[in-house]
């Protein structure tokens, strides 16, 4: 029991990391559910990487990285929309172009500055073990906003997941609510990158919700499962980082992916057992 509890009781930074990570798990569970159901994985990935130049410029200018990240997501989403609307190119192409362009720009900005090396690691991989009270407060505010918007927009979001045309015909603008959904993804990335980093926040969006999708029969249940799996990832990832002296952000995301494959394996075996029972029912 000591192995599981003591690190959090004896070290305040571990407790803060657990708290911050749990909030990240919660927001990523809600937003990640829509990322999966709407097939927004690619743009979600693009947003989480495309914030790099915004963060880099913000740090160079001495303003909070969160502000730069927010501007970066606006540029990314606006660019994708512009290319998709004004050309015959598919959204995939537009996303890919903006993704690599923004990432390359971010790397160039970082490579031109000599003072960036430590900041770069922090940006890419997060600093959950050094998370501040201010960052936790920001995450709580973002979580509240995300819950309120999700509840308020639950009907159009559900329709969008089911059929965007049905949403439009039902009187809910598909485009408007699609952008609101993207804004929630952007908000999640912007407030979460400080905890798990821009490279890994996408893993927290996908893996727990993906595992939830394998188990849930309802969207609410999918979010609940995603929250549970995300929180377990945070907890066990932090423990692994503490005891094995490995990078915390990466340990968390790797734990999330491992949990996904564990659930996948269990469900696959259960599915095969059910099929076997249907083909060869036991004799009474």
């Amino acid at each position: 029991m000591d192995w599981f509890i003591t690190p959090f009781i004896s070290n305040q930074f571990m407790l803060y990391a657990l708290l911050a990570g749990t909030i990240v798990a919660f927001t990523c569970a809600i937003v990640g559910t829509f990322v999966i159901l709407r097939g927004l994985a690619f743009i979600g990935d693009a947003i989480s990487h495309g914030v790099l130049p915004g963060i880099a410029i913000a740090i160079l200018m001495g303003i909070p990285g969160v502000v730069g990240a927010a501007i970066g997501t606006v540029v990314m989403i606006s660019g994708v929309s512009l290319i998709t609307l004004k050309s015959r190119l598919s959204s995939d192409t537009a996303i890919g172009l903006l993704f690599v362009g923004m990432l390359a720009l971010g790397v160039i900005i970082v490579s031109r500055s000599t003072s960036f090396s430590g900041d770069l690691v922090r940006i890419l991989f997060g600093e959950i073990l050094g998370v501040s009270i201010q960052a936790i407060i920001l995450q709580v505010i973002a979580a509240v906003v995300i819950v309120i918007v999700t509840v308020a927009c639950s009907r159009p979001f559900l329709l969008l997941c089911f059929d965007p045309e049905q949403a439009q015909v039902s009187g809910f603008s598909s485009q408007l609510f699609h952008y609101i959904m993207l804004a929630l993804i952007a908000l999640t990335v912007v407030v979460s990158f400080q905890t798990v980093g821009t490279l890994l926040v996408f893993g927290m969006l996908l893996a727990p919700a993906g595992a939830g999708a394998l188990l849930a029969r309802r969207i609410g249940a999918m979010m609940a499962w995603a929250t549970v799996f995300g929180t377990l990832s945070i907890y066990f990832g932090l423990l692994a980082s503490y005891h094995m002296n490995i990078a915390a952000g990466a340990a968390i995301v790797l734990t999330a992916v491992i949990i996904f494959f564990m659930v996948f394996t269990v469900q696959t075996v259960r599915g095969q057992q059910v099929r076997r029972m249907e083909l060869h029912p036991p004799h009474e």
Partner: protein
Amino acid sequence: MIHTTHITEAGSCSTSCLSAQHLDIGYNHDTVVSDISVQLKCGQSLALVGTNGSGKSTLLKTIVGLLQPLSGEIIALGKKPGCVPQGIAYLSQFHVSGFVLPLRAIDVVRMGRFSKLGLWGRATKADEELVMAAMKTMGIDQLANTPLWYLSGGQQQRTYIAQVLAHRADMLVLDEPTAGLDAAGQEIFSQAIKAELSRGATIITATHDIKEASLCDLVMLLARQVVAIGTPQEILTPDLLLKTFGIQIPHH
């Protein structure tokens, strides 16, 4: 040259649920069908019949406001398309989400009430009764709590039709509604449509099924242009069907 009949007016403008005048439809300035003119009285039914790619789905999408007309005029339920979401229920042809979404059958049917409830309207007992009635009509009330991905293709189609019925709309716009339905499902659907017409709803349906089309008040034959519009007796003739489909279609 494809033979074109004159417009058949199903009723006066004051009782018209759908009115199209010299309407051109298509995508991004590419015309699919031009010069469509039709009027449909409230409580009547119109079947769009044609080959794949003939413009049936394009016309349905224009009627519900998903596509803007390229030229001409179209009025649905007294307003431009897309302006009366509470009054129009739409069944699209494709549902890509069937095997992905964690939704039960009843969750899908409940979505049929969303346009009437709006963003934050409270669902009442009356709404739930309409949902259950729609499921019972389509014979899927026993499957209410079954996940969508467990259902067969035919059961899913019945669920989507139940969603449309739960809407209690003034106009039902249906794209290939009987696709994937077995004989029992088709008979249940036919009875459901008769009940909708009895309560005064207007039905516009795109179908490959000539027998289904023959039960409607009006039929429009499409082949990337309007081949003919009229009553089933006038339109569903061997000659016109040959001109529409390019091969002899048996119809009894």
